[in-house]
């Protein structure tokens, strides 16, 4: 079956599923008509270097691949749609076993035309140490990113995806599988795009796998940021933390839905997820659905939390007594709020780069 036929054969997603509750499929679809697959699709322009622009080191490669990449889930409408759009646009990034890279890798995806999409298969070798920073730059009105990753035994891998789209829609679908003793930090920084729908799934398949997922979302204007994060503990002694911080200004809306599932037999799992929302204007909205499904009783802990509120008046008052203007004090508190998760994303090099990026976006909030 062709990719197009595979997509068209799938039923429309049910809004009773939390994945599609706040952003129904037709809203994120490029034409708003789910039965359509745009015929004119521009390929993404890909650049892959070290963060300072120098060439890739030995043991890291990028190549075009034939065929599609597929997540192992039922009725994956988003994934099928991106495959239908980009059946000739799949690439593979490989980090060889044992490779240690001091400087972060920078993957820039520049979209062009009205609709653009790409599939990326990431393979991180055993015992390797690396960081990957993916920048999604503006261009197309609609961009689809489908990523599939395998983090092999004992690899240490930091991954950060930054959405810097302009007035575009982004559909981001991904699935990463962590094997034995893999240590992974996955970060999402969202400050661009007018509408973002993320369906991010992480599977702790190897004993001792360790995962930290961090989100730092800066919403302003009419932005709509909807991220669904699923973490599945399938093996024993696995560890996960999810921290998702969203600040919402203007008339923006941020949505964080999560599913933390502890499979039967995943003894000694330790997991937690937190969604925090900072509401900055009277028209901003924040929605959270942090779900838990625990099928194993021998767990170290399993919990979730969510909190939503405005900038703390006492903190604001304190900063103003120290000489800050109202705007300056607010900016500082918002930066600190977003930094709480940015700080956790990868090395100091990445953090400094991201911090600069976020500070530049604060002026757009009101």
């Amino acid at each position, binding site marked *: 079956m062709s990719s197009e036929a595979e997509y068209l054969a799938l039923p429309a997603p049910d809004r009773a599923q939390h994945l599609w509750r706040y952003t129904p499929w037709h809203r994120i679809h490029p034409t708003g008509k789910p039965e359509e697959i745009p015929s004119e699709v521009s390929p993404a322009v890909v650049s892959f270097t070290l963060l300072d622009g120098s060439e890739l080191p030995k043991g890291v490669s990028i190549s075009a691949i034939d065929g599609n990449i597929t997540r192992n889930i039922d009725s994956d409408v988003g994934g099928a749609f991106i495959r239908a759009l980009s059946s000739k646009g799949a690439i593979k990034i490989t980090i060889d076993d044992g490779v240690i890279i001091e400087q972060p890798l920078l993957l820039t995806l520049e979209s062009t035309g009205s609709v653009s999409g790409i599939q990326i298969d990431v393979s991180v070798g055993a015992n390797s140490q690396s960081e990957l920073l993916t920048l999604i730059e503006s261009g197309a009105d609609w961009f689809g990113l489908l990523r599939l990753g395998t983090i092999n035994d004992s690899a240490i891998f930091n991954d950060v995806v930054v959405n810097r789209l302009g007035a575009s829609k982004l559909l981001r679908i991904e699935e990463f599988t962590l094997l034995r003793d893999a240590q992974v930090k996955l970060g999402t920084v969202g400050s661009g795009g007018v509408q973002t729908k993320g369906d991010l799934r992480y599977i702790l398949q190897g004993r001792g796998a360790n995962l930290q997922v961090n989100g730092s979302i800066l919403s302003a204007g009419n932005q709509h940021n909807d991220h669904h994060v699923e973490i599945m503990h399938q093996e024993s002694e696995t560890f996960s933390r999810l921290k998702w911080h969203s600040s919402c200004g203007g008339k923006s809306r941020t949505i964080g839905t999560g599913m933390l599932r502890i499979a039967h037999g995943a003894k000694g799992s330790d997991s937690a997820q937190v969604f925090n929302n900072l509401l900055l204007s009277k028209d901003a909205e924040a929605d959270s659905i942090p779900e838990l499904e625990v099928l194993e*009783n021998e767990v170290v802990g399993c919990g979730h939390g969510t909190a*939503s*509120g405005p900038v703390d008046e006492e903190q604001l008052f304190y900063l103003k007594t120290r000489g800050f203007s109202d705007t300056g004090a607010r900016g500082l508190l918002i930066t600190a709020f977003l930094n709480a998760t940015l700080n956790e994303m990868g090395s100091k090099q990445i953090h400094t780069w991201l911090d600069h990026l976020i500070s530049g976006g604060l002026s757009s909030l009101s």
Partner: protein
Amino acid sequence: MSSDARDAVGDYKAGWHDPEQATVRFDAGLSEQVVRDISELKGEPEWMTDIRVKAYHHFMARPMPTWGSTELLNSIDFDKICYFLRSGDGTKGEWDEVPEDIKNTFDRLGIPDAEKKWLGGVTAQYESETIYHSIREDLESQGVIFLDMDAGLREYPEIVKKYFCSIIPYQDNKFSALNTAVWSGGSFLYVPKGVHVELPVQAYFRINSENMGQFERTLIVAEEGSSVSYIEGCSAPTYSTDSLHSAVVELIAMPGASIRYTTIQNWSNNVYNLVTKRAVAHENSTIEWVDANVGSKLTMKYPAIILKGEGAHGEVISVAYSGEGMHQDAGAKVHHLASNTTSKILSKSISKDGGRGSYRGMVTVSKKADNCKVNVVCDALILDEKSRSDTYPTMEIKNSSCRCEHEASVSKVSDDQIFYLMSRGHSEDEALALIVNGFFEPFVRELPMEYAVELNKLMALEMEGSIG
């Protein structure tokens, strides 16, 4: 109770049944004629018949929910259920007038004794209709109306018509439509302005027959500045076939009023318990749902509060116990529609012997509701490797001045805690029962003493043999 019956009932203390002595029993199955026959039998006004018929058609047209325990929901055979069964010949005002078998049942459940000692009024429902009803004279003289719902409709049609279906329309969900179509029994409680009902009033619901459907309808209106506490309990015999309990409860707290609604749900594990409960709180009023779910095969129940008036407060405190073959899908919903409203949800659940406990909740804060405060806490204990716990909370915040917090945790009973208690001389079972009672303590302290003691005993019984 015979030894065979005792074996069948097991640890469930309320699982015996009496021989059925129906004076009116409808054939199993649901049709428009059944709905009209129920209405005619009760001599209801035309508007009620009309709303029943509309609700019936809505029920038939509406699909089953696609969330929750869909497998169990889809296994309900609505054609096998009896939708109306009358035992005895009407509601009595004295226990001695109640038929002997039924009186013995309620004696064993401790209802007449409780009434004498600490209740302001009692309603006892057996199958489809109330068989006993009483209220203290001093409350009656203050204008408090406490009747079964059928009598409420007969004697105060204007009040019932004003509020019936006003909080939960029949179109709300499939089971509120079913209840509206075939409702029978339940309580009607009206508390006049400024009256404080010091002693709680109680309703007890008993299903006795096999394949029975019980569809009570309860309406409580607390006028301005009044207060009342209502307690309901329920139980059923243990059969190999399933029964259905689908109630609708509507509460209205006018400005400054306070309503506490306590439920101790202890259905046998062949009962589907699919209940819709919702309250509206006007200015500076308080609604409290205190909800224990320790029985049933499947419970789907999410007591809701609509905080409509400024300064209103809502609380839902609930516990759930899921044993073998049980799924407790319970939770709470609070909707903040007005400014300076506050709410608190505390949910505790325990899963054991393959049981599944699910918290499903929703909190919304509307755009116009300034300075609201919300606190939600869900804790779950899983006692063995066969059991399961889920948490599905939804928070929708549309106002930036709101402070909303939610936290949930799932854990097991710590070996250290068991070891410590055993070192102080307790057996393993006792230690576990103590820990479980401690886990439920924030809920139990909200109950009247008599209920708290019973609940603690019940949980201790459930915990026997849980370790080792």
